[in-house]
Structures are given as C-alpha cells and as structure tokens.
C-alpha cells in the first residue's frame, strides 16, 4: 500500500493551491460568487490554462488524468480555496462528452473556450433517473431545476426519456433556452432552465449508465471538496481558539472546546479515508456503492464540522465578513447537491440488499 499521490498529482494540487491562495481571497470570491453572472470568465480561463480541466479527463479522451484520484486532488484544492467557478458542472459534462466521443466539445471545455452543464433534475425529482419525467425528441419542453453552472454554460446536456423507455442524452444550446440564473446561498451560480419546444441534438438514446457514472464522478468531486473545506475549517478553528481570549485566557484552554475540536478532527480523518477509498473505486464495478457510502459519511461529518466551526467561533462565526462562515455554508449546502446524506443512505441500503 502507498498513500502518497503521484508526482503529477502533487504538482497540479500545489499549483492550484498557490493560484487560489494568491488570486482568490475571500472578498473577491464573494463578489464573484454572489453577483451576476456568478462566476468570473477570466479566472475560468486561467484555471483552464493551469490544466485543471484537462486533469478531469483521461489521456485517451483528450485530457491527461481522469482517474478518481485526479478528480479528488483537484476538488480538494477547490474546496480549500472556496472556488465558486462552475467546475462541478463542467466535470460532469466533460465525462459525458468523453463517454460519447464528442472530442470537439471535450477539447473546447478543456481549453476553456466553452462551458457546459448537466441539466438532469426536475422539481421533486433529484435522486435517481427514475424520477425524471421529461420526454425526449427533436424538440424538448419542460423545466430542469437547480442546474449547477447553468448560469454560465454555452451548452446544456439534457436528460430525458426516449420513446423506447430509455434515458436519452440531448444537447441544447443555452442561447435557445430560457435560462433564469441566480446565486446559490453558499455562492456560485445555478439556473432554472425552461425548454419550450426547444431544438435538441440527440447525443445518445441509451445514456443511463454514462449519466450515472458522470453523476458519481460529481459526487466524488463534492466529497473531495468537502475534505478541503473541513481541513481549512479545522485549522481556522484551532487558530481562533488559541488567539481568542475570554476569562483571562485563550478559550483553547477550556477542555469542553478542546474535546470538540478533537472529535471533529477525528471525523475529518474518517472523511479523508472514505474519499480515498471512493477515489480508488471510481472505475470499479461497485463504484455506485462506494460513492454513496462516501457521500453519506461526508454529509454527516460536514454537518458536524460546519456547525461546530460556527459555534466555536461565537458571534464572529455568524458574520459575512469572516471567511469561515462561507466555508461552513458551502460545506453544509454541498450535501444537498446530487443527493444528500439521507439519499445516499437509501442508495447504500438498496445496493447492499440487492
């Protein structure tokens, strides 16, 4: 066994960490994250130049990474830097374009000149593909809800049912849709995508397996992002407890607080471990089970860490001014993306008893 990352992965992780630390302080991040268009095209171009998008796709498909560990290394750093760019959306889109040999799109996204988003969920339908109601064809109608990165996408990959009862994957030009963009409460953009007899290009008429694989890659990315955020929060809480004086001493001296910091640090190590395990399983037969387990644990650990980080900071942890509150919000809300703790539990129980 070897728990060290390869030289290449360490390099990409280091350069991404340095880039975000230098270019993406909290004030600037919040401006981008909460003001239309909820992302920064120049930052996106620079991230592409750093090779961040290429790292998410295999060499065979036009990138230079694409393994579970490539994804987790990148997203851990995006978490640590609280990056609000639409990386999750483009990760899932890249995986799908690659799966269906759409090399032009893959190259466009890797190079930073195009962006895409996966429009899959509908109102009351955001757990499994079976929930989806939209029907496919040359023209699509209906609404896709909370489409991450839909605010900044050129192309939308829309999931809809085919006449043959399969799940089809369609491409729609964002310009042809009614795209209602908004900020998410933890920053970054999403959109409601309204289709009304909108022209669509069929990419695959049987895409369920590829869509589920792309969603799992997205779930893994969210888990890794959470680990980066949790590391950051643990460090900030520790520093704050040592620095904040009450009752004539640093509050770090109160054992009630010490033990809670220890407890959540243990959960962070558990979280890191399950993300490592899940990263190693992204291309395995039992991928779905491992990803769901990881996201369930991450959801529980994330809630604990986010709530404790706010609480142990006292009032200051409740303020917009102070970066850790934004980390705590992101950590809380990423649980809601692509199926939350409870939803992953449903998946795990189904798969284990199948």
């Amino acid at each position, binding site marked *: 066994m070897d728990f060290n990352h390869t030289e290449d992965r360490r390099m990409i992780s280091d350069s991404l960490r340095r880039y975000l630390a230098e270019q993406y302080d909290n004030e600037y991040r919040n401006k981008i994250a*909460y003001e239309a268009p909820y992302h920064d095209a120049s930052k996106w171009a620079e991230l592409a130049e750093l090779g961040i998008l290429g790292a998410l796709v295999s060499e065979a498909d036009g990138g230079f990474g694409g393994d579970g560990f490539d994804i987790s290394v990148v997203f851990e750093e995006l978490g640590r830097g609280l990056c609000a760019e639409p990386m999750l959306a483009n990760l899932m889109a890249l995986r799908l374009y690659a799966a269906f040999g759409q090399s032009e799109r893959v190259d466009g996204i890797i190079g930073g000149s195009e962006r895409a988003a996966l429009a899959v*969920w509908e*109102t*009351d*339908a*955001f*757990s*499994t593909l*079976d*929930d989806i109601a939209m029907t496919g064809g040359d023209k699509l109608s209906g609404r896709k*809800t*909370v489409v991450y990165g839909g605010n900044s996408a050129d192309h939308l990959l829309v999931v809809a049912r085919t006449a043959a009862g399969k799940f089809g994957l369609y491409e729609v030009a964002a310009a042809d849709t009614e795209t*209602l963009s*908004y*900020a*998410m*409460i*933890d920053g970054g953009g*999403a959109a*409601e995508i309204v289709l009304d007899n909108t022209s669509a290009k069929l990419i695959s008429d049987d895409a369920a397996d590829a869509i589920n694989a792309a969603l799992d890659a997205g779930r893994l990315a969210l888990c890794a992002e959470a680990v980066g955020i949790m590391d950051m929060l643990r460090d900030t809480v520790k520093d704050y407890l040592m620095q904040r*004086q*009450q*009752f*004539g001493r640093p*509050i770090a001296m*109160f054992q*009630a*607080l010490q033990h809670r910091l220890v407890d959540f640090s243990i959960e962070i190590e558990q979280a890191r471990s399950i993300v490592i395990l899940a990263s190693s399983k992204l291309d395995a037969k039992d991928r779905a089970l491992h990803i769901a387990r990881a996201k369930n644990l991450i959801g529980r650990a994330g*809630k604990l860490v986010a*709530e404790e980080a*706010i*609480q142990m900071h*006292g*009032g200051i*942890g*409740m*303020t*917009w*001014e102070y970066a850790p*509150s*934004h980390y*705590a*919000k992101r950590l*809380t*809300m990423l*649980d*809601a*993306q692509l199926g*939350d*703790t*409870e*939803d992953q*539990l*449903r998946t795990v129980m189904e798969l284990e008893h199948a």
Partner: protein
Amino acid sequence: MDLNFTPEEEAFRAEVRQFLKDNLPEELATKVRNGLEFTKQDIEQWHAILQTRNWLAATWPVEHGGPGWNATQRHIFDEERSLANAPTVVPFGVGMLGPVLLKFGTEEQKATILPRILDGTDWWCQGYSEPGAGSDLASLKTRAIRDGDDYIINGQKTWTTLGQHADKIFCLVRTSTEGKPQEGISFILVDINTPGIEMRPIRLLEGGYEVNEVFFTDVRVPAANLVGEENQGWTIAKYLLTHERTGIAGVGYSTQALIELKSLAKKLKRRGKPLAEDPIFMSKVTEVEIDLEAMRITNLRMLSGGGAMGTVSSMLKIKGTVIRQAINDLARRALGPAACPFPSEDVLGNLAVAPPEAANNAASYFNNRKLSIFGGSNEIQRNIITKELFMG
C-alpha cells in the same frame, strides 16, 4: 398530578385564539410562515395591536399596563401566538428593560419610560457585548466617567440586535476599575441620537442585516439615566438573565415549525413518493417531535417551580435551542437542492424553485445558528449548570 389545563386556562386559550384570529394581519402571518424579514413598521404595527388588549408586555403587572399573566398564561399565549403564525414581540423594551426598571428603577424612571415602551415611542436595543467581552461579559471596557451631572462614555458595543431601528440603548458600562471586574459595572440608559454615537451594520452569514456595532466617542449622558446604584450593573444583568423563563425554550416556535415541516414533507417527493412516507427522513422528524413533546412538559414542570433558578433556565435554553435548530436543519434538508438558491427577490418571487413558505429554509437554518450563541452561549449555560451541580 394532573396534566390538564384548568377550565379557566382553557377559556383563556380560547380567548387568545379568537383575538389572534380577529386581529392578526394576514400579511404579517405570511411573513412569519415564509420566514421573511420584518420592517420596523411591521413590528410597530404588531406591538400596537397587542397593546389594544394590554397584551404587549406579557410579564408586566396590570398597574403598569401589562396583562398581569402568570407563567402558565404566558406559556399558553406563546403557544397560541406561534400556532397562529403571529410575530414574536421584540424583547428589548418590554422583555428586558421593563422588568429591570420595575425592579431597580426610580419612580420617575418608571413613570416616564414604561409608557413610552408600551405605546411604541421608544425602540430600545441592548448594549452589553463588546468585541473583547462576549462570554466573559464582566470584562467589558466601555468606560463611563462621572463629570458633574453627566457621565461621559467612550468605547464600543457590538452585536446590537436591531440597533438600526432603535431610539435608545441600555448599556452595561465600566464605572470603576477597582476590585473584581463585576463590581465596577453600571447599567445606564442612552439616547441613540446623542452626539458621539455611531452605528455600523454587521451583515450575517445568510446575508441578512439585524446586528450592528455601536461606537461611543465622548458621549455625554445625564447621570439621572443610571438605573440602580453606580456599580450595581452586574446584579441587574444577572437578575434579567433568570427573570423571564417562559419563552426561553422556544416551545411555541418549535411546535409551529414542526407543523410546517410535516406539511412540507407531504408536499415534497423523494424517489417518487411523498417525503412524509419516507422512513429515513421521517424517523428524524419523529425523534425531534418526541423530544419536543418531552420539552413541553419539562418547560411547564420547571415553570411551575421545580429546580434551581440558574439551572432551570440554562437547561431550557440548551435543550430548547437544540430542538429548534434540529427542526430548522430538517426543514432545509427536506428541500434537497431546492434549498440551494440564495433567497433573492427573484428566487422568492418568480422562480418558485421551492414552495414559497420554504424558500427561506436554508437562510433560516444558518441564521438560527445564533440561538446557541447569544443570550449566553450553550457552553456558558453548561458551565452554569456544572457550577450548581458540583458547588450549589
């Protein structure tokens, strides 16, 4: 033992319910249900409606314009108010300063200040906390130095809730640096428009604006504005902490929030079925419901006189806030990704990503993290209980 309310209490409940039915403006009820912010006018309007029956200042005696209710009546009122989706009363004037003046104020202070609280002339805010004095409130540094018939105040207060609406602020200030820190603190009333006071907003994590920093530079305040004796401020502050215990557990709030949560769970679907039929989610809802049922009795039991003062209010505060926060957490989770949009006007108005009454659920969850921090954090409440357990 008899867990039933008396016929008189039931009659009182019916009276409160009818009053709320007849007098609560629909617009305010909608704001409460949807978790929206109140304007100053909203709150003033609601206070005035309650005061038509002398119901605004629930703890005040009749001779001072209160209803003269006992603890059970206040509990019933709070429950009915919550169930009707009526706003809470902003506590700083009626719930905090009022009782302090009734106990420590001069006759003149009572005669001039109390009526202005009731008729809405004065909006009060609370100036206790400072940047360096949160949990360790006794270390506060804002200085008041006697100068003839005045005090001159210098320093800074922070976390001042709804200070942006306030006409007046009651402050704990340092009047002596001799002896123990607790012994040099005074309680003083300050007009917010006095020269030398500057208020700056603090934005909270969910994006809302309800707290402020207040800076004092050579602020001249008449010595007659002192409440109680000089250096008696700590005694007054401690009196207030254990005075009003009915509302501290938030049983009314939780009861109403749980009703909303259960109705939301019926509306939303998970994997093709109503969330209300999903055992994984509903087991969590049901456990909170069980906790709340016990809390209701704990609250009534302790109000009826069991247990020591400090421990009682500390226990009610801890368990009550844990339950409220757990319900907020579930109300957010119920929505899945529909909880994600930042509740801007667009999102609340046109987009309808989540049902309107739930569109603020994530923001409310984040905002209510404050419940376990303010009013003496839950850690400090545990320290109080610990002290009484081992040394009481």
